[in-house]
């Protein structure tokens, strides 16, 4: 029995039993509580603070080959019963429109309880501390610029404590507690002659108040703003001819999330998200044999990285988590599966089912996705580039709904001349296909870094915390675009 749970866990078991007695051949009851709080500053002044507590139960049933989900925050016996009844009745009602019954794989599901331990409690991030850190960031950033103004800095700092208890009809019992900390700053730099430049800074991970010390927020933001001032004032257009381009860990991280993680979600490959987040260029017969890139292109997805933003040890269907190779040495390798997609592919789930909150059905999601680093130093990576561009960070990006045609617009970027970083470059545009990117990888350094994000998918849209990362990656013969 879990101590201090927000409801009697016997109710979850009863809900599962009730679903089975009403005809379900699989049932799952998930209690989930998410407590989030934040404070927002604009420049050195507080705007407001808030707390959000989402607590309820999501019920999922497989009945007559049809899948039903119902969520309620009425945590009484009657409330859960009503949710089970709705899930069953509406799933049954739709079953006549199904030609092929939905089935789940049998899995060795877990019975476990785990908690991310903090070195310093989330409670140490008091309101005074959050406000004083925000004011420090604003003061230091405004003091760091020389020839531009800083009309706006928006700062937000928050915590997120997530607790889940998942019980399934085939024996899963998973209790977890994961605390997270997040910090965001939106900085606008303005010049009379050169216009404006905008940068969003983001920090997020699982853990406690100790994270904020480790992030060195003020120092990191201030130093980058100093460099961005130089970009705004002195940035030149990128070369118009094809050159070697080195993309930094932040861009590489986003790129693998978008062009490796998403297309390797098995539900997307099958078309379940076709009308929302789209499908995938990956087809089932490509898995294990289609060459998407050079042998240096290996992308890993791993929920078990300690301290990561996408951390979990069991997924929301009770399956134990493990690392997976999405692309391995340039080959399309292993899709992300839940128990439904795994059944269709004739394999086992690799524990990718996640839900944003109690109102959300578990669907196939990423956790922490990264480009596998190599063993070169950064200097070795660029030493023989006569003329090239280094794209360190980005603001604008997007990708098509098959995860093939994508665009990243550099923010902090530099020319590379004779093996060294040179003058700043303004808004270089990398617009490239997925195969175009991975097949032009000719060098990978060893500087693996992770960046946080909130990945959106599903209907209703679910945002789940993730990390994405990578090392510096060198691409050959790239034609960059410019902002019109």
């Amino acid at each position, binding site marked *: 029995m879990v101590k201090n749970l927000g409801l009697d866990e016997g109710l979850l078991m009863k809900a599962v039993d009730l679903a089975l007695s009403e005809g379900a051949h699989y049932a799952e009851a998930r209690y989930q509580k998410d407590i989030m709080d934040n404070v927002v500053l604009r420049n050195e002044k507080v705007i407001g603070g808030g707390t959000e507590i989402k607590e309820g139960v999501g019920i999922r049933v497989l009945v007559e080959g049809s899948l039903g989900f119902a969520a309620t925050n009425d945590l009484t016996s009657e409330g859960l019963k009503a949710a089970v009844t709705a899930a069953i009745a509406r799933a049954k009602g739709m079953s006549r429109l199904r030609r092929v019954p939905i089935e789940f794989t049998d899995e060795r599901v877990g019975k476990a309880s785990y908690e991310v331990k903090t070195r310093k409690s989330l409670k140490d991030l008091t309101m005074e501390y959050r406000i004083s850190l925000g004011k420090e960031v604003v003061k230091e950033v405004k003091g760091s610029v020389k020839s531009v103004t800083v009309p706006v800095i928006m700062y937000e700092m928050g915590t997120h404590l997530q607790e889940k208890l998942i019980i399934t009809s085939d024996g899963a019992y998973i209790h977890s507690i994961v605390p997270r900390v997040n910090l965001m700053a939106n900085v606008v730099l303005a010049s009379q002659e050169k216009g404006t430049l905008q940068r969003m800074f983001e920090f997020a991970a699982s853990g406690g108040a100790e994270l904020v010390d480790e992030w060195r927020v003020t120092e990191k933001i201030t130093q980058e703003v100093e460099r961005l001032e130089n970009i705004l004032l002195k940035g030149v257009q990128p070369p118009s001819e094809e050159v070697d381009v080195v993309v930094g860990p932040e861009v590489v991280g986003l790129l693998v999330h978008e062009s490796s993680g998403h297309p390797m979600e098995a539900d997307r490959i099958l078309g379940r998200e076709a009308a929302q987040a789209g499908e995938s260029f990956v087809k089932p017969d490509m898995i294990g044999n289609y060459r998407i890139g050079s042998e240096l292109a290996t992308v890993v997805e791993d929920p078990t990285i300690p301290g990561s933003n996408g951390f979990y040890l069991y997924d929301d269907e009770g399956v134990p988590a493990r690392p997976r190779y999405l692309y391995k040495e340039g080959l399309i390798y292993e899709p992300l599966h839940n128990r439904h997609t795994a059944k269709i592919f004739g394999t086992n789930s690799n524990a990718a089912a996640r839900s944003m909150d109690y109102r959300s059905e578990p669907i196939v999601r990423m956790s922490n996705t990264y480009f596998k680093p190599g063993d070169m130093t950064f200097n070795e990576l660029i030493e023989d580039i006569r003329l090239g561009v280094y794209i360190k960070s980005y603001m604008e990006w997007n990708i098509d709904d098959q995860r093939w045609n994508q665009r990243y617009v550099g923010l902090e970027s530099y020319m590379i001349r004779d093996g060294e970083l040179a003058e700043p470059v303004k808004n270089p545009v990398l617009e490239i296909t997925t195969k175009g990117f991975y097949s032009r990888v000719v060098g990978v350094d060893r500087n693996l870094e992770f960046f946080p994000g909130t990945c959106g998918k599903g*209907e209703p849209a679910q945002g789940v915390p993730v990390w994405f990362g990578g090392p510096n990656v060198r691409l050959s013969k790239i034609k960059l675009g410019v902002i019109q």
Partner: protein
Amino acid sequence: MSIPLDIGKKVVDKLRPKFDDVAVVINQKDYVMVKLWNSEPSVTQSWMDTQVSLLLTKDKKVLMLGLSVRDPEAILGAVENLGPAIQNMEESELYAPLPEPTRLSPLTGTVDKAVIEAMRDPSPLVEEMLEGAAEYKVDRVAGTLVLGKSTRTLVTSKGFEGVEEGTELEAYLRAFKGEFSGHWAFGSRRVEKEMIRDVGAKAGYYATLSSSKAEFTPGKYDVVLSPLVIGNLIDYIGFMASAAAVLMGFSMFMKFKPGDKVGSEKFTLEDIPRDVELPGSVSFDDEGVPTSNKPIIHEGKLVNLLHNSGTAKKMGAESTGNAGWLMPSPWNLKIPTGDLNEEDLARELGNGIIINNNWYTRLQNYVEGIFSTVSRDATLLVKNGEIVGNLGRIRIADRFTTLLNNIENYTKKHYKIKWWEVETPVKAPYVLIRNLNITKPFI
């Protein structure tokens, strides 16, 4: 008297002695969503939910609380736990006292019993959509049908008490034929069977309109954007029209003031909360201020930013009835119609590109309005008034000011659109825009 109103009054009464301002919003929702995949239901989701939001101020300090509970004692207990948080907060730059209640003009026609009836068994409406697409002999479809009813209750310490009920229907479908696809969407407060069928039919129409591929060279093109595409883009314009977005650095309107030209004389953008045809319709905002229909941009000139009391005080304006306590936002959006013939868009365009649908709009810089968005579904190259083929996925990469300034004309009919990529309900026709920058990958 409704139960939520009782709860709201009880909470406000209990908290009034401890705070300067108290507002409670209680949202009760009963929704069902059928999601389609490969022409079959993939999941049927139901929500039976009560969400409580509280605004509390003390000595100009502002705290907000969101709770998924329905018991007044639990709400008060959660507020007790906040004690130190508000004490340690500082004065808000955007604090303004809650407004005194004024006379409301309630909306009628926000509830359609047919929606509630259809929630019991949504399958006939799902079949309408499927049959609409089947007329075009498509290979498969995917999409969503949402039916729901909600009750929104607001009680404030200034004496405002309001309860509004509404129903909602949202339907969208994507149809596939070979490697091509089409998409359509519809959002309303009512069951409109012919429109639901039309969602499927229009998706099927665009999926089958051209069965050949075409190529293009990146550059400037005249384009016709469907109501879905322009709906997505004006969703961003509406967001940037929020005074809070301006103050926080997330708006192209940072560089403009009311009266400035921001678009073509042909372009007017209105916030229409009092149009009960759209599911965003409300008669009062989250501070109890009566809503009104109003232009944001009128004939190319910026007229109104969207305000709550706090942003209005900060910027020397009046509330526009668009609270959000922190973030004012539009309720429903509308752009004008024109005289283009929808049945012959290719001839109206002459040379250029017709875009059925888009997604993934992102900005390099909100202040400059530099953005790009990616087409999906039918993206049709037009030469000499004829569709010559499908371009696949391309990108509009330009500035919002350029887009608004280059608007030339519209078709004659509004569509009511709401879907995954158009979160604020809109009334929009097809739009003809000259000289937009269109790009694609170099490899």
